């Protein structure tokens, strides 16, 4: 089996006293689309930040393409990030630039290509996400789904080896959601890249990903292919897949005994 592109080995992370991840190990194989799922605040986005080198693990190792991210200096980290692309939750488009300039931004910053070639490349990337006709619009004129697609075009501008998606389906209508899902799969295959999707949209993810990790309370609690996940008896995954209100993830926030609180007159 070839070396995975991303490998996390016994990674722990904490914000001060608050532990976010405990001894997590997982890998993202080359050419595959992997989803990382879990409830809000379980540390999914932190995982992306660790892979991108925006945070450093307090224990364990994060390797990307054989390099230990935590040991990279600023220049080496930036060199690695040029081969990565990250799609933020709401696109994070530069609001003072047109759609065209947003997609051209990484090309202008990191290459010395002539303007004509940048023009062609930007139009190709926008065409790939179906928004060549929106090149002259400002981000404020786009719908949420269109903004996400423009951000996707910007993310793939430099043909990255690794694509990271932070909640790409949040707040989208069903059509936009399907479009983004299909684009993630198609672009990954067309670019020969690897993708990590952090999401809690189970139904869309099951259609497009190759492998899924479930995270809860900072640990990997389940993993498998979409087929394995659909048929698993694991109570956490079952609750997640079927959107059950109560289960291993309780409905109530931990509190004192209800009857005692009512009779004692305090919350």
């Amino acid at each position, binding site marked *: 089996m070839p070396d995975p592109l991303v490998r996390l080995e016994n990674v722990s992370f904490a914000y001060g006293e608050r532990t976010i991840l405990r001894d997590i190990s997982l890998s993202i194989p080359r050419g595959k689309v992997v989803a990382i799922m879990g409830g809000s605040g379980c540390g999914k986005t932190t995982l992306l930040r660790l892979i*991108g080198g*925006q945070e450093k693990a307090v224990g364990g190792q994060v390797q990307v393409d054989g390099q230990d991210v935590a040991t990279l200096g600023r220049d080496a980290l*930036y*060199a690695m*990030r*040029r081969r*990565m692309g*990250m799609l*933020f*939750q*709401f696109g*994070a*488009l*530069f*609001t003072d630039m047109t759609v065209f300039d947003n997609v051209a*931004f*990484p090309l202008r*910053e*990191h290459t010395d290509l002539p303007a004509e070639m940048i023009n062609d490349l930007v139009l190709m990337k926008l065409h790939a996400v179906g928004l060549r006709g929106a090149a002259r619009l400002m981000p404020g004129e786009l719908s949420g789904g269109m903004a996400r697609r423009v951000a996707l075009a910007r993310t793939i501008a430099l043909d990255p080896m690794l694509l990271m998606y932070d909640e790409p389906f949040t707040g989208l209508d069903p059509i936009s959601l399907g479009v983004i899902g299909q684009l993630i799969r198609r672009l990954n295959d067309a670019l020969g890249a690897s993708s990590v999707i952090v999401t809690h949209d189970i139904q869309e993810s099951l259609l497009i990903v190759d492998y899924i990790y479930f995270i809860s309370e900072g640990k990997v609690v389940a993993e498998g292919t979409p087929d394995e996940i659909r048929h698993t008896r694991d109570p956490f995954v079952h609750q997640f897949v079927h959107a059950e209100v109560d289960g291993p993830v309780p409905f109530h926030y931990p509190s004192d005994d209800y009857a005692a609180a009512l009779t004692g007159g305090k919350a």
Partner: protein
Amino acid sequence: MGGGIRKLGSVAIDVVWQLGFIARFFWLILVYSGQSFTRLNLTIRELYFSGVLSLLIILVSGLFVGLVLGLQGYEILQRYGSSDSMGTMVALSLLRELGPVVAGLLFASRAGSAVTAEIGLMKVTEQLKAMDMMAVSPIARVVAPRFWGGVISMPLLAAMFSTMGIFGGWLIGVVFIGIDDGAFWSQMQAAVDFRYDVLNGVIKSCAFGVAVSLIAVFQGYDCVPTAEGVSRAITRTVVSSALAILALDFVMTSFMFRGL
């Protein structure tokens, strides 16, 4: 008693930590300033937003300050029979103090707050993070050009404020009150020294430009990325800039104009 001392110590540590953080931030701006000058269009754009768009308020305020100086100056000077010195009084007041200080305060309110809001909102909408993930330093691309745009704009705006103020003083003194035109300008020319008055005023406005721009970009970059956080950062920019300008003005005036 013990609690009070602990609280004082904690506040002192916070202030020292904050100052150290600002100093490191300032150092990073200087280190990453290369792009502001090699890709001059980034800085020119900020010069337009901080400088050109502040022109209206600076020119109008300068005119009114000059008009008021003319009225007040004439009222006082005529008591001593020296109303011909009005040009001198207006020019020295503006070049030494009012030009740099009032222009600095207006600049902090108009341009400084806008810079803080812009950088703060870029932080809220993850644009700075996105830039960093694209291997483009936000300090080099966003912060440094805005800092230098402010530093360059400020002395130019102060000069225009003073010029407009002198024009306002001339309007009141010569056109409306009837002071001799020749006396107004010749006394001003004789009394105003280029190095002592004009240059010191320019040095002051440069120092205010650095202080206001640094405070504005720092508050935007350091703000809590929420609507409330940005609003607080803007308030801090205006308040801290005003205090910094007035404190720096006192310190510099005490060194520059001791009358020795």
